[in-house]
């Protein structure tokens, strides 16, 4: 306890020192930003006075002293400067290491890209290992606090995230998790936001997508009622379908123990005249469903969610069976848009493998934070993050993330917006399987 107090006092002194240093820094940085401003206006040649680089410089530093002036300047678009301490917590070793490392690699690529495109705004990135353990995750969080972390892009897995987000909520540290998808992560914490869909949201998005694209009039559902993931998606899909007037003609289930024979479920869907079968399940049973439907000579549309991702990589799977299957996935490495292509090629070059969904979620995290800070600077005037306390940054980021006008286009979805409780809303990406590969819709 005593040790803790001493550490806190030390940390406070250090913090004060930084703040003290920071007044100097703020005096400096607008000057530099002023000169770059001058540079840009030079290029644009709109500002007549800008040729006098020296005078503009002086002018900005003067203006910087009075807030009101800075704000009036802001509407024209302020600049984001300084260095942000971005922390990450995830399982880098242990059983779940595959997820933590994917997120870390994805975030690292994004941080490098941001640092390259914005010379005035730099991110210092500090990933910490939690071995997918709640207690170790809180320790990792305390390490990051000692390092004066300002924003956390994590944690990766759900259970540690619930523990850390409670601490971070009390300390007012902004957290954006790439991949902890449980609603428990965000419930009741205004500082906590997600990049991934919550599991049940996939059901909403699927129903919406089917209706928006008028893909079917009669829908059958086959889901695994011994699995929380599958059941959760089914329930939200079902209620949303009712709301949207989508007719569900057959709902059948299976369990992990009866995941071999689907003749009854498919027969019921067929006799009910379903033209689309919604499969909120993983790809192994889905592959059997496709096979058995084919044997029966029944050929409806099949619509899956992210659990279906992986069906094409099953060794020995006859991909012609999956022809025309549509699935809703936040990320597909085979997509052909420029963002994805750039990310996939960089990831391949850096880490020698194709990025998975976790890597993509990770990649979007630093960018979303960067865009949010830039958005704030654009609205409210120059923002220098150096030395800002985590709480100040937290307040800023909460205001931006809950601003309905703020949106972000990432590799895991375009036009992402966040609700006040931290859930993401994004246009889901749907892909269709054609000739054994994903094709974007």
């Amino acid at each position, binding site marked *: 306890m005593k040790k803790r107090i001493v550490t806190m006092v030390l940390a406070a002194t250090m913090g004060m020192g930084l703040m003290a240093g920071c007044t100097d820094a703020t005096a400096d940085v607008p000057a530099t930003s002023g000169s770059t401003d001058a540079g840009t206006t030079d290029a644009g040649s709109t500002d007549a006075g800008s040729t006098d680089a020296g005078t503009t410089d002086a002018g900005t530093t003067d203006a910087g002293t009075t807030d009101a002036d800075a704000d009036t300047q802001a509407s024209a678009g302020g600049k984001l400067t300084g260095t942000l301490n971005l922390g990450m917590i995830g399982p880098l070793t242990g059983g779940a290491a595959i997820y933590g490392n994917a997120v870390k690699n994805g975030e690292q690529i994004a941080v490098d890209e941001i640092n390259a495109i914005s010379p005035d705004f730099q991110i210092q990135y500090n990933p910490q290992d939690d071995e997918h353990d709640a207690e170790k995750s809180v320790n990792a969080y305390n390490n990051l606090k000692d390092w004066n972390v300002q924003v956390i892009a994590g944690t990766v897995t759900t259970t540690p995230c619930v523990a850390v987000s409670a601490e971070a909520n009390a300390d007012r540290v902004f957290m954006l998790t790439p991949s902890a998808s449980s609603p428990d992560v965000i419930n009741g914490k205004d500082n906590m936001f997600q990049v991934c869909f919550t599991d049940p949201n996939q059901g909403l998005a699927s129903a919406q997508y089917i209706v928006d694209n008028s893909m079917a009039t009669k829908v059958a559902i086959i889901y695994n009622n011994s699995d929380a993931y599958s059941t959760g998606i089914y329930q939200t899909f079902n209620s949303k379908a009712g709301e949207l007037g989508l007719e569900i003609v057959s709902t059948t*289930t299976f369990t*992990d123990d009866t995941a*071999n*024979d689907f*003749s009854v*479920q498919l*027969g019921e869907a067929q006799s009910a005249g379903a033209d689309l079968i919604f499969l909120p399940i993983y790809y192994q049973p889905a592959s*059997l469903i496709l096979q058995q439907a084919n044997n029966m000579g029944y050929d409806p549309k099949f619509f899956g969610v992210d659990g279906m991702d992986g069906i094409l990589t099953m*060794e020995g799977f006859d991909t012609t069976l999956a022809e025309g299957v549509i699935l809703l996935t936040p990320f597909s490495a085979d997509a052909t848009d420029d963002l994805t292509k750039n990310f996939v090629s960089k990831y391949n070059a850096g880490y020698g493998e194709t990025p998975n969904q976790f890597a993509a979620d990770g990649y979007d995290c630093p960018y979303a934070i960067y865009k949010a800070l830039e958005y704030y600077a654009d609205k409210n005037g120059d923002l220098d993050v150096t030395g800002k306390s985590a709480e100040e940054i937290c307040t800023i980021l909460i205001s931006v993330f809950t601003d309905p006008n703020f949106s972000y286009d990432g590799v895991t979805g375009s036009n992402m917006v966040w609700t006040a409780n931290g859930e993401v809303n994004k246009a889901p990406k749907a892909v269709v399987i054609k000739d054994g590969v994903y094709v974007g819709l």
Partner: protein
Amino acid sequence: MLANLINGISLGSVYAIIALGYTMVYGIAKMLNFAHGDVIMVGGYVAFCSISYLGWPPALAVLASVFVCTILGIVIEGLAYKPLRNATSLAVLITAIGVSYFLQNAALLIWTSNTKVFPNVFANLPAIQLGGTQIAPVTIITVLANIIIMVALTLFTSKTKMGKAMRAVSEDKGAATLMGINVNRTISMTFAIGSGLAAIAGVLLCSAYPTLMPTTGAMPGIKAFTAAVFGGIGSIPGAMLGGVLLGVIEIFGKAYVSTQLSDAIVFAVLIIVLLVKPTGLLGRKIREKV
């Protein structure tokens, strides 16, 4: 109705062929070989590798699979069960569960957890049309295999010298030894035959439901065990009958009652049968001497 009956028989025939191996080992060695389902999985993987990696024709792949599983059965019996010949049956049961986990995890190491899809070995056989419903060739082959194995096993245990020795061992090990029967060799032989049957069951299971994972054998194994108890464990025709009935009840339960309750229905029927006839449908009543 007809479609459901055919689907039920097709599912049940897969249970039946696994149940034959269970009941054979139980009938003679008087032990529940819970690793049977996992030997099936190994059989499936060996056949998969022979066809997909080595390009062997399916018939040769089945032989390779039978060969590997027979050896595996003898090795398992020699290493894990033989030292426990005089231990309590509970110790042997726990060992069998241990062997089951060992095989699953060994398969996880060798073949990884990635699902493999079993090639369609009966692709060139035509499906039969019956009243507007298709009967898949694998169903017909499985039913035929069931009947052939059932008849062959019955003849083997009643006519051959080795078969008679097996029945003698199953009735009284001590007396069998006194009669000059090598008990250890007889039990090893039983495991060899049981595991060879498991390999055939593995190929047929994977042909009917073509996903192959290290846990592929576990659930069908338990269902088949249920089927063997249903039909009367130890009885060879009983395993066949129990398996087919289990499949039909499961499919009818799904189709006419509820897909959510199918397993509950299956096990409720099992409980009722065992209450009325504790030895199972075709089980012989054996008087226990105290």
